Structures are given as structure tokens and as C-alpha cells.
């Protein structure tokens, strides 16, 4: 049964790829059916502590297995993946209706479902790494779905390349963990005594590198906004709800295994040196702050959501860094629903406006597409952490944890919460209120039921998923959190929301242009702090530097000393012996006679 969960999407992908590429509609329904079946199977599969597995490759001292882990964490994560996945498939049926390469698209989606399932269910690091790379591949394929568009092809390449950097660290981390614990399987991972703390810290950071790449944390965040070149449902599924959360899931899984199933995580702080998890926390915090700042000045509806995803992922990583993977997973779980909702909502808007993505060319859509607008509003509220929505509960937990452990991070988180409300308010006001600014927005109509149904379905968990009674049932790791009214976290959360929404209302409600756009700071935000430019410059510089070193080696060592040296030695010797070739017969005969005398002398007299 668990194998079926894993293999069903693969079978679908294979079938589509091998036989149904021409018949897009059939392929779409097949993929959707497989996603739905996976969801049902996941729901039906009981969670169990023992992984099912078989040995894949056995060496001396190394036993790599392929196994499926079915504990609470994995199975509930599966619910998110398959749940969001199914709804995205459904949405795609409408959104990609007229696409020429529908078969390829759904093949990619199925492949992604397969790889994501693999990551979630993997019972050891090697298998996880394999699926980790597979996820990267399917992400590459889906970002580059419209590969004839140059920016899409570039974005796909960029995502792939940036992820390689993180994966390199991940692999080193896996090897270090293996070297220290002697086990790759999550269930057998226990730290032996006497491992130097610094090594542990480095290993943790190396493993974290993988999460930095996949979950787009600074400084490897640059690929995620560009990945929005892909179809919007892909952005919703892969680049908002599931794949980018894989980094957080992986870290949680790692802590979980090290912890040994206690779920307390209390002694993790004693195991790892402080610098390692503090680095993680600050990477998360800084990412979330930078991303939120950048989001305030983006004009592309999907870019805003992309930066907000970055920001929320930063929250999760921060929670991981504060050694509360359960809190991180809880936020991951709520975030998946409302972020998928927001992306699909933006997809509906884009679809209705004839693939227009600039929010300043929309406006007044509230009356034209009420269902989309209302669900979008619910998602916005959840993301902003409006009380009694899903996002509120999880964000409040993060605030609480931060407040308890690190005041500086707490302040940072509050600022980010404020900014989140602000930019989401900006997005919502500009898009749905005011007057239509272009013909496309003027003529926009509500999308069909195939597209608004997923929105409506996603709106439900966006509101309800955070409530303890729901969360306990389906959240991967929800631990009942004593909810205190008027705690610092609660108050900060409320204030941040109120401040953000107020500011957004003042600045953007019924406005036709961005009042802040000409501020130099705003330009900095709009240009994403010039990180891309810096990377471009740095990569160019680095490659030039490397090239000049190699050119030096080539010219002087290989060309000059080895090849040139040998040729010069040969030429010199040749010139030397050339002198002997005088062309004079007498010299030759003389030398021959000398040789004869010498030979006689040596053979007879010596």
C-alpha cells in the first residue's frame, strides 16, 4: 500500500510520457486521477513507526535501503502534499486548458508528485537525496514549461544551478553525518559519544545548505522569484506549498531522527554547538526580512507572492534554528494551504486578465470576480496573520518562540509581520479595488468552476487549519500550545497586522500609482537589493579570475614548460647535433676512424 502511494504518480508520469503526449486532455485527467488516488491512499494508510524497506545497495559498512517511513510526520506531510497537489491538478485542468503541451505539463506534475512523495517518505538520507534531485529536475522542467520564452528557460537554468550549490553542501553534510553516526537511515541515527561539537555544528550547517538551496534562503534565494516564470499552478504547488518546504521538512526530519522520537527537542541545544543553530535562525530571520522588504515594491502579482513565500520560509527556518522544528512544521502546514490559495487566486486573476501580471494594470476586480476576490482576501488575511485564521495560529507560535529565546529575532519577526500585512494589503487593494486601469481588467470575468472550486476548497483549511482540533488531526507536528491572550506575541501580532493594514490602506486604497515608487530606498527594494546584479558581477569576476589562472597554467606551465619545454629541448638538441652534420665527407670519415680506434681501444686494451 505505501508503495502504491509512491509509485502511482510515477506510473502516471510514465504513461503520459510514453503514450499520452499527444492526447493532452486524457493526460490531464489521468494525472489528476492519480493525484486524487494518492490523496485517498494517503488518508487510508495508517501511520506506523516501522518503515517498509528493502536493501538497495550493500557494501562493507554501508547499507543503502529504499524504504518508506510512515510515521506521523511523514503521513501528515503527505496529506499536505497530496491535498494541495490534487487541488492544483484540478485548477490546472482549467488553467492549462488551451496549452499546447498539456501532456508534457501534466507529466511534469506527476513526476513532481512522485519525487515529492519520495522525499517525504524516504527513510534514509541517500534516498532522500535522490528524490531531492528528482524534485529539482521536475521543478526545472515545470519552470521551463514555456521554454520558448527566453526568460522562462533562463529561470529554469538559474533554479537548477543555484540549487546545485545548496545540494553540494547537502551531500557533504550527508557524508559527515554518515561518518559520525555510521547510519544513513533516519530510524538508526543516534549520535555516538565523543563526537566533537564543532564537527556536529559543521555537519548540521552542511545539511542546512541543502535546505538553503531548496527552500531559497539567503543568499541562495535568487532562483525562487525567477521561478515564477513557470505556469501559475506550478508556482502554487512547487514554489509555494510543497517543494520549497522540503528544506524545512528535511531539517525537521533530521532533528527528529537525532532526537530519537522524543518530540521534545529540548536537549538538541546541548547536542549541537550554539553557533550552528543560531546561524540557521539568523539566516531564516534575515531572509524573511529582506524578502518582505523586497515584496513591498514588486509590481508583478506573482513576484509579490514569491517574495512573501521567501519571507514565510524564512519564518520556518528561523523556527528550525530556534530548535522548534514542530513549530516550523506547523507553520509549513498552514502556510501551504493559504499560499497555494493565494497563488491559485493570482492564477485566476492572471487568467481572467488575459495573462496580465502587472498589478498596476488591474484594478477593480472585486466586483467582477467575487469568488476569486473573497477567497484571495481570506488567503491574504491568513498570510497576514489576522486573528482566528490559520496563519494567525502558526505565526503566533513563532512569535512566541522567538520572544522566549531571542529578543532581537523577535523584533525582526514582528517587523516582518508588519511588512507582510503591508505588502499583502498593497497587493490586494491595488488588484481588487480602485478602477480598472486597462481593457483587460475592464473585461475580466469570473473564472469557471473548475478553477474557483479549488480556491473555495483551499479557503477552508486557510481558515480552519490552525485551530487545535483540526491541527491535531492533520498537522505533521502539532503540539498543543498554551494559548495566552494578551501575551507579548499575541499583542505584537495584532499590532503588526493593524499597522500594516492601516498603512497599506492609506497609501494604496483607490490609488492609481505607487506613492513610494520614487524613493531611493523603494528602488533598492524594487531591484531586490541588487543581489542578482552582484551575483552576475561576482560570477563573472570569479570565472574571469579562474580563467586567468587556468590561462596562466596553460600558457606557462603546460604551453611554456611542458609542451614548449620539450619542444625547446628537442630543438636545442637538434641544433646541437645539427652542427655535427657538417656535410664534409672528411669530417665524417675522421669521426668514423676515431670511433674505430676508440672501439679497438676499449675492446682490446681495457
Amino acid at each position: 500500500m505505501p508503495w502504491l502511494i509512491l509509485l502511482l504518480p510515477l506510473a502516471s508520469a510514465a504513461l503520459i510520457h510514453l503514450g499520452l503526449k499527444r492526447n493532452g486532455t486524457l493526460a490531464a485527467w489521468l494525472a489528476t486521477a492519480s493525484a486524487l488516488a494518492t490523496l485517498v491512499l494517503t488518508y487510508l494508510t495508517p501511520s506506523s513507526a516501522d518503515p517498509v524497506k528493502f536493501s538497495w545497495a550493500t557494501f562493507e559498512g554501508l547499507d543503502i535501503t529504499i524504504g518508506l517511513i510512515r510515521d506521523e510526520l511523514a503521513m501528515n506531510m503527505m496529506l499536505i502534499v497530496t491535498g494541495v497537489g490534487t487541488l492544483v491538478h484540478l485548477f490546472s485542468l482549467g488553467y492549462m486548458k488551451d496549452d499546447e503541451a498539456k501532456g508534457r505539463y501534466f507529466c511534469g506534475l506527476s513526476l513532481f508528485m512522485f519525487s515529492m512523495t519520495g522525499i517525504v517518505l524516504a527513510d534514509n538520507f541517500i534516498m532522500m537525496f535522490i528524490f531531492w534531485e528528482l524534485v529539482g529536475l521536475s521543478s526545472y522542467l515545470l519552470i521551463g514549461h514555456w521554454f520558448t520564452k527566453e526568460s522562462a528557460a533562463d529561470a529554469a537554468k538559474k533554479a537548477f544551478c543555484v540549487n546545485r550549490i545548496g545540494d553540494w553542501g547537502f551531500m557533504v553534510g550527508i557524508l559527515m553525518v554518515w561518518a559520525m553516526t555510521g547510519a544513513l537511515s533516519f530510524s538508526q541515527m543516534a549520535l555516538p559519544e565523543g563526537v566533537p561539537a564543532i564537527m556536529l555544528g559543521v555537519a548540521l550547517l552542511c545539511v542546512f545548505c541543502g535546505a538553503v538551496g531548496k527552500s531559497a534562503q539567503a543568499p541562495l534565494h535568487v532562483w525562487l522569484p525567477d521561478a515564477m516564470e513557470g505556469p501559475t499552478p506550478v508556482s502554487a504547488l512547487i514554489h509555494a506549498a510543497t517543494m520549497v518546504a522540503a528544506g524545512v521538512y528535511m531539517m525537521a526530519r533530521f532533528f527528529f531522527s537525532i532526537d530519537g522520537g522524543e518530540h521534545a527537542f529540548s536537549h538538541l541545544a546541548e547536542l549541537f554547538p550554539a553557533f550552528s543553530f543560531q546561524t540557521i535562525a539568523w539566516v531564516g530571520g534575515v531572509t524573511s526580512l529582506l524578502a518582505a522588504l523586497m515584496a513591498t515594491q514588486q509590481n508583478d502579482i506573482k513576484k509579490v507572492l514569491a517574495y512573501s513565500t521567501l519571507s514565510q520560509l524564512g519564518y520556518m527556518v528561523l523556527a528550525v534554528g530556534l530548535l522548534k522544528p514542530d513549530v516550523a512544521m506547523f507553520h509549513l502546514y498552514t502556510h501551504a494551504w493559504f499560499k497555494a490559495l493565494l497563488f491559485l487566486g493570482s492564477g485566476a486573476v492572471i487568467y481572467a486578465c488575459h495573462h496580465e501580471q502587472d498589478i498596476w494594470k488591474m484594478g477593480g476586480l472585486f466586483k467582477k470576480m467575487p469568488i476569486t476576490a473573497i477567497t484571495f482576501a481570506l488567503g491574504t488575511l491568513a498570510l497576514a496573520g489576522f486573528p482566528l485564521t490559520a496563519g494567525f495560529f502558526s505565526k503566533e507560535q513563532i512569535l512566541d518562540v522567538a520572544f522566549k529565546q531571542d529578543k532581537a529575532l523577535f523584533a525582526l519577526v514582528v517587523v516582518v509581520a508588519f511588512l507582510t500585512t503591508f505588502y499583502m494589503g498593497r497587493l490586494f487593494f491595488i488588484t481588487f479595488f480602485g478602477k480598472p486601469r486597462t481593457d483587460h481588467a475592464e473585461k475580466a470575468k469570473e473564472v469557471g468552476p473548475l478553477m474557483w472550486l479549488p480556491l473555495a476548497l483551499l479557503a477552508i483549511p486557510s481558515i480552519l487549519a490552525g485551530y487545535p482540533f483540526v491541527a491535531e488531526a492533520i498537522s505533521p507536528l502539532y503540539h498543543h500550545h498554551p494559548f495566552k491572550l494578551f501575551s507579548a506575541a499575541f499583542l505584537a501580532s495584532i499590532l503588526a497586522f493593524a499597522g500594516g493594514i492601516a498603512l497599506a490602506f492609506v497609501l494604496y486604497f483607490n490609488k492609481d500609482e505607487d506613492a513610494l515608487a520614487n524613493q531611493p530606498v523603494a528602488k533598492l527594494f524594487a531591484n531586490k537589493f541588487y543581489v542578482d546584479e552582484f551575483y552576475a558581477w561576482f560570477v563573472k569576476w570569479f570565472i574571469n579570475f579562474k580563467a586567468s589562472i587556468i590561462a596562466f597554467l596553460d600558457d606557462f606551465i603546460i604551453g611554456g614548460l611542458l609542451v614548449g619545454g620539450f619542444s625547446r629541448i628537442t630543438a636545442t638538441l637538434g641544433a646541437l647535433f645539427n652542427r655535427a652534420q657538417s656535410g664534409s665527407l672528411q669530417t665524417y670519415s675522421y669521426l668514423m676512424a676515431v670511433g674505430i680506434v676508440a672501439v679497438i681501444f676499449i675492446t682490446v686494451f681495457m
Partner: protein
Amino acid sequence: MNPASLSEYLFASGLLFAIGLAGVIVRRNIIVIFMCLELMLAAANLTLVAFSRSHISEGLPDYDGQVLVFFIITVAAAEVAVGLAIIVALYRSRQTIQVDELTSMKG
């Protein structure tokens, strides 16, 4: 009167050979060089005959050596014929028989 010894013959042969060698080295006229080569061959013949005389079997000299001399003389005759033909051809193309003017093999 005492007959001469083997070593005296060999020394005479060596002397003639050395003179021929000196001629090959010093002279530049290719015809003279050729003559010197003939002289050296003849000196070698003298050695062979001297050893043939010295190696008595059943009271007679060992005639194998003299057969070899016979062959050498034949080859020398052929060599002279070919060599002189080459000299003629050389003279036709280069108008000289001085070896120090024939340095086209210079590297």
C-alpha cells in the same frame, strides 16, 4: 736467412691500412680517396693471406682464407666500377670532384 714472421706481415698490413686511412681523411680529391679505399681493402687481404699461411693443416696453408680474398677482390672490382661511375655522374652534375665542395648534406 730467417723467414719473416706472421706479426711482421700483420704489421705491414696495418701500416698500409693506416696509410690508406690517412689518405681518406686528408685528401680531398674523391678519386684519390677511392684509391685509398682500394689500398685499405688490399691491406685487409694481406692480413687474410698471412693468417692463411700461418694456419697450417696437414702441411698446407688453410685455403679458406684465400678463397675469401678471391671474393674480396671480386667485390672490390665491382665496387670500383660502380664507384667510378658514380664519380662520373657526380662530376657531370656538379663539375667538381673535390669533396669539400660537396656539402649539400649539411644539416
